[in-house]
């Protein structure tokens, strides 16, 4: 009788471990396609439009601004209008900026910032970046609907 109880307990333990392993897999991989809450709000705070049609010049001023803010450029691609940069100060701060035509008269700049493993969702932080960029290219940043 005791041995039957032992077998049942052992099976329970094995099932418990398997379940824990399965849920652990689910918990870490679900971040792959998980969008932050209020995606449209986040996109709006990360994006500004500038009255310029020169995307290349805009990309270059993004690069210069990031360098002035202490970032080191990791990657850049002119045809795609993308630049990524990192700042290492104990923890790593990673930013990706895309530049693309927004309207016949304006260019949209979108910045996405990550500190450590966390995406930044603070509007004031993005505002600081666009203020610095506006100072660098002498253009006014407009909110994008």
């Amino acid at each position, binding site marked *: 009788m005791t041995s039957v109880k032992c077998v049942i307990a052992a099976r329970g333990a094995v099932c418990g471990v398997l379940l824990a392993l399965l849920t652990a897999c689910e918990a870490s991989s679900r971040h792959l396609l998980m969008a932050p809450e209020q995606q449209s709000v986040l996109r709006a705070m990360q994006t500004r439009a500038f009255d310029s049609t020169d995307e*290349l010049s805009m*990309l*270059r001023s993004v*690069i*210069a601004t990031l*360098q*002035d*803010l*202490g970032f*080191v*450029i*990791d*990657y*850049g*691609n*002119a*045809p795609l209008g993308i*630049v990524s940069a*990192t*700042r*290492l*100060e*104990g*923890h*790593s*701060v990673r*930013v990706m900026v895309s530049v693309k035509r927004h309207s016949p008269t304006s260019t949209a700049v979108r910045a996405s*910032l990550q*500190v450590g493993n966390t995406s*930044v969702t603070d509007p004031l*932080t*993005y505002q*600081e*970046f666009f203020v*610095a960029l506006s100072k660098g290219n002498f253009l006014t940043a407009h909110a994008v609907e």
Partner: protein
Amino acid sequence: MARRAVTPILLALTGCLVVDTPRGPFDAPKAAASQRLMQSRKYETRDEVKVLHAAAALLMDLGFNVDCMEDEVGILVASKLRTAVVTGDVIVAILLSALARNDVPYEDRQKLRASIVTHLTGEKSVAIRATFQRIVWDSHGKIARREQLNEPEIYRDFYEKLSRALFLEAELP
């Protein structure tokens, strides 16, 4: 009564402490202007691609691998893996390990990265800005340090070598 007397003294003492507020992600570094000066030079040429190619050749001579080069926006990124072992640190780690009966880690290997950005400036010159950073792993495989390298000699030495490669004199921006 005594507690009442101690509280203002404590407050006064803590008031004297300089609290270093953490830097926001987009806050400019404290020494932004001096850093820019240290990292930047200017060459009298209109050939931006030539400057980028000379920098790439120099970095390759120094053992770097080019990770990204985009001449349309004037970007060159290169990196190399090297040992970070300093004999003195290893001896200290061994002694501490023996004393603490625990495996005390030491700095083991590092990834050094160079990021070069160029742009045309004025009518007849190319401005170049180089930044170097490194990530150091300890003997346990954990990241021990992530930092930008801010020693002026590094930048001076780099630009001296680049000037020789370009046959041009580097000017401060």
